[in-house]
Each structure stands twice: as C-alpha cells, then as structure tokens.
C-alpha cells in the first residue's frame, strides 16, 4: 500500500513539473509574440525576409553559352579562364558563393553549359564579357538559362 502511495505521489509530482514547464513556455512564447507584434514594422519585416532568404536553398541555374574562339579550348581551360575572370571581377568570397562550374563543352557546336547559383547568373555573363574583352573569346553568345542540366545539355548539343 505504501509503495503504491509513493508511486502515485511520484507520478503526480512529474505531471505537476511538466505542467509548470509547459505553462512557463507558453507565457514566454506569448510575451515574445506580443513583443514582436509591438515592434512589427517594415524594417523588422525586411530583416525577417532577408534572414528567410538566406536560409532558402540556393538553386542552381545552367547557362548555355556559345563561346567562339580562334584557338581550340578544352573544358579545363574554360574553367580556368572563368575562375580567373570571376575572381578578378568579384573576389574570392563571391566566387565561393556563386561557385561557377563549366560542366560541358561541345567542340562541334562551341556551346558550353555553366552551372552557377541562381542569384549570380548575371555575374557569370559579365565575367565572360571580360574574357571577350581580353580577346580570349571572339564571340560570347548567351543562349539560354535552364533549371536542369539535362535540358541545358540538350540545347548545347543543338547547333
């Protein structure tokens, strides 16, 4: 009988502790919501949106670009040129954020597929223009921007 009483007392104590903890959390949460609503303005909203955008997964984009050059070039050479141009223009930090990579180069159609983080796609085109100015490429024709490598490769194979 005594054992049963002790057991029920322990259970009651645990339940009471859990109830107190839950109540405290609810009170804290309510206070936070009230504080947030009191300070809610465009500035705070912008901060939230920015934080949310940072948390969002960065999507990749695949650029199909026709790179005409008088001397022959290879995939690794293209990557080297692109890296140098991008770092020269935007610096190493932006380069690591954009992580541009030449995935495919078709020597017949002269088209290449470059993968880049979505918000840096225009930077890659400027880096290629920089290479055109340095006369590494005689023509740089951006053809398409796709969301998948498969589609991009399909377009790169068409003359």
């Amino acid at each position, binding site marked *: 009988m005594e054992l049963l009483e002790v057991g029920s007392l322990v259970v009651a104590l645990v339940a009471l502790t859990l109830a107190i903890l839950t109540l405290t959390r609810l009170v804290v949460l309510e206070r936070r919501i009230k504080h947030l609503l009191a300070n809610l303005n465009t500035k705070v909203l912008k901060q939230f949106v920015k934080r949310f955008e940072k948390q969002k997964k960065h999507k990749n984009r695949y650029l199909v670009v026709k790179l005409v050059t008088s001397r022959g070039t290879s995939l690794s050479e293209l990557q080297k040129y692109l890296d140098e141009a991008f770092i020269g223009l935007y610096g190493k930090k932006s380069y690591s954020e954009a992580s541009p990579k030449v995935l495919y180069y078709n020597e017949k159609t002269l088209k290449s597929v470059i993968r880049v983080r979505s918000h840096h796609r*225009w930077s890659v085109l*400027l880096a290629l*223009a920089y290479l*055109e100015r340095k006369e590494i490429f005689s*023509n740089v024709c*951006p053809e398409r921007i796709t969301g998948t490598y498969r589609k991009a490769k399909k377009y790169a194979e068409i003359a």
Partner: protein
Amino acid sequence: MLGQLIEKALVYAYSVIVLQDLTDIKTLNNVRLIPRTIIDYGNNPQPAKSKSLKVLVARAPEELKLSNQVLRVLSAIEVGGKLLTDARYRKSYVKLVNVRKPVILNASEIMDMILSGKDLSGLNTLLNLYERSQITIALGSGARSLSEMHHPITYYALLLELGLSEAKAFSALTANPASILREVGLNGAT
C-alpha cells in the same frame, strides 16, 4: 574593320549601329549604319545638313554647358568620366533632369571603371534618377574595338549588376535607344 563589325553585329542580332566616322546613313547586310556627330559646346553649333545623331559628350561638370543653341540641335547627352565616378556634382545631375534630354551611358567606359576598381557613385546617382523616371538612359556600347562589342544580353547583365530593375534595364537597351533615333527621324530598332 567595317566588314568585321557588320559580321559581329549580325551574330549579335543588332540591326542598327551608330558610328562616329560616317558621313551618311548606309545599309550593309541589313545592318543600318547611322553617323554620330559630336556637338562642341564651345562653338555655336549649326544644324548639320545630313541626318545624324547629335551628341554632346560631357566627361566633367564644366563640359555640361547646355545653351539654348546647343539644346536646339542636340539629340542626346553622353555622360562619362568624372560625372560617373564622383557624386558631388549635384548641379550637373539636376541640369540633366531639367533639360529632359536622353542620357547615353558608355558601357565600355563603365566596364573599364569596374575593372580598375573605381568608385561609381556618380553613376549610381544617375541610375537612381533613371529608376525614379526623372531621366531617360540609353546604354551604348562605346566600343573602340571589336572585342569591346558585346551581346545585348551581356549589357542587360551589366545593368542588372549595377542595380537597375529588370524593366528599366530592358528599356535602356531597347525602347530608349529606339526612341532617341525616332525623335531625330532615324527610325529603326537597336
């Protein structure tokens, strides 16, 4: 040189090119070549007999002297140099807003400035005025050699990288240059 230029223009789908060293309008391989005349603010400009795009080139605030005589013949104002790198010349920007003449920016010069790491606060001021529709901007290639002539999408990328909205960047490359040519009676898309 002209042949190579036309060839590259065809690859990049340009239909009109405005050139400095031309005497008259020409059409070669379906590409229209339009002459450009530089207006000298020092002399009294006389309306040219042949059709051409009359541009005043201002690289410093003191070169932005827009007398009534100059304004009468002027098609657009090309802004460069100090006016792009220094935002102190408020009066010059106000003058550009007041005269309501289209402003031409030289992409080649802007790219050089970016590559040499120059401060582009003046350019940012101009782009802000354009974004608020207080001035009209058209982007010209300003190419001095074939390698400085880029694809229109590259220029679009340049304007977006400089912070312009997509609609404004698109207008600066399509509608605005076309309207400059239309106003001086040189119809044709760019």
